[in-house]
């Protein structure tokens, strides 16, 4: 085979590369801009160019030592991790049922569980508030864990169904004969084989909970219930004059954990997002 046949024509490659470069800029530029701003002071924010002349880490120091930051970080971590674990647990059971059993209204039910995600979150807040107030759960971790989990479960279930269906039924039959109960078949055979799907669903749930803002705003009121996104919002209000470099330092600080997770699991996420559908 000649070189010509192996690679696509130059024009195609130019278009492909241009598109990729544009996409990369579109995705990365805001983060880079934010990072750049976080290294400046309010005075030099607009006067200096993209690359700060006297970069400073002062803003990060202020973020980390600011009042309540450790509490907000701990809240965010606790809520995200707990709701993600719960989400995965519930979604595994739900997805297994959808993947393995044929039952009446299966398709309708499958569409129905997406409803919470189709509705705008803002439209859910008032009715949810009523329910939560009636249950006396306002301003608790419980309410945030429940609402975060409830909104993440449909997405995670949908992701996992495809993976579970791709697990050959014979593996479960073999496990059944080997003495595994249905519970053991799910957790020892189906789930480990669907690891890329679990990682994908897990990271997406975690990210949603980590960035969630309307619910925490609506359902909590005391300062020690705040999460990082809430604090970011509060910072803008409290200072009168908005300290953009500080806010950007805060933003960068909050996205670092998620970024690290993404990088750690990048391979599984990519295979999870691409293979689940067609396998």
């Amino acid at each position: 085979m000649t070189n010509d046949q192996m690679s696509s024509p130059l024009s195609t490659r130019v278009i492909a590369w241009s598109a990729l470069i544009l996409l990369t800029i579109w995705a990365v530029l805001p983060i880079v801009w934010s990072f750049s701003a976080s290294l400046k002071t309010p005075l030099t924010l607009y006067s200096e160019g993209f690359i700060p002349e006297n970069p400073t880490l002062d803003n990060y120091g202020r973020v980390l030592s600011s009042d309540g930051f450790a509490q907000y970080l701990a809240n965010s971590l606790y809520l995200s991790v707990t709701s993600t674990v719960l989400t995965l647990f519930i979604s595994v059971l739900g997805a297994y049922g959808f993947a393995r059993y044929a039952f009446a209204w299966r398709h309708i039910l499958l569409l129905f569980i997406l409803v919470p995600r189709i509705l705008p979150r803002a439209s859910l807040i008032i009715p949810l508030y009523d329910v939560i107030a009636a249950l006396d759960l306002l301003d608790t971790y419980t309410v945030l864990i429940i609402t975060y989990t409830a909104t993440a479960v449909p997405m995670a279930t949908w992701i996992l169904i495809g993976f579970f269906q791709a697990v050959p039924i014979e593996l479960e039959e073999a496990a059944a004969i080997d003495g595994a109960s249905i519970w053991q078949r799910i957790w020892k055979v189906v789930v480990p084989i669907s690891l890329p799907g679990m990682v994908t669903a897990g990271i997406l749930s975690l990210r949603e909970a980590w960035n969630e803002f309307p619910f925490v705003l609506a359902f909590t009121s005391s300062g020690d219930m705040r999460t990082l996104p809430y604090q970011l919002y509060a910072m803008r209000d409290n200072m009168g004059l908005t300290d953009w470099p500080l806010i950007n330092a805060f933003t960068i600080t909050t996205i670092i954990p998620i970024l690290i997770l993404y990088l750690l699991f990048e391979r599984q996420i990519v295979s999870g997002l691409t293979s689940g559908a067609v396998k």
Partner: protein
Amino acid sequence: MASVTLSGLKKSYGAVEVIQNLDLEIADGEFVVLVGPSGCGKSTLLRMVAGLERISGGEARIDDKVVNNVAAKNRDIAMVFQNYALYPHKTVRQNIGFSLQMRKTPKAEIEKRVNEAAELLALTPLLDRTPRALSGGQRQRVAMGRAIVRDPSVFLFDEPLSNLDAKLRVEMRAQIKALHRRLGATSIYVTHDQVEAMTMGDKVVVMRDGNIQQVGRPIDVYDRPQNVFVAGFIGSPSMNLIPAKADGTGITISGKTFGWNGADFPSKLPSEVICGIRPENLRLGSPEKGIEGIVETIEPMGGETIASVSVGDTNLTVLYRDRRPVALGDKVGLTPQTDALHLFDAQTEQRIS
């Protein structure tokens, strides 16, 4: 070890009956092969014994215990699947040990038994690999290891060799037989390959459309097929089945009459019969001597040659072991060995004894 008794067994999916009122007795330690064309219900039957398929009617017993409503995990059986069904995320060691782990066997005991099974199947150097790093034959052996490690009372095999290449299949066939001799466990083996059925089973069960056609020792089924279906199914190349007329003097095939020549012929004969002749019981000769035909294909296998001869609008298969100067298009005469004929009633397709 255990016996397996199926009585009046039925399986239906809605209105479709795939197993109809089936009775089968499998003795302790016996190696039974279920054979039949695809869709005959043999795999369904195996899965019913395994507990993977619900029993719609009748009774399945392992030893004296009715197992109709016993879960697969509590039947003390092991199964080797056609696609092996190895756990891809576990190493060979974990795959083999999984059933022991599920039964809460102490770690040291698991280790010991996995090592023994691995030793027996020459898997010791592969114990820490995952299935994806194994060849087809090795995977097959791991599947066997997973089955034997627990020392179950019944082994079930669902076409375990059909994904292997021809050479490996012959090797594994011998290995499974040797294993059975060594362990002496009751085994039920499903295959559509009649060579496997002939070579492996103590007993062959020929199935068709959810019914048992014949049960017997392989050689008996081969020598005395009970009906036209079994006659055509068992044996490779297949038996020639030709409409014929028979009476006290002899048998007339394609207008040519052959005397019984002292062969035991049935005393009561319907006028219309189907005559079965194994390819090795047909002699090739000069055209004037036998059933006249034209050689259409010749397949020299080395040790033997298989020729297909067209006679009227049918083809007869001949198998011979000597070298003969036969060429395509030659006019030949075929003479049946009259003492090796199988006669079936043309109406009922049952053997005439």
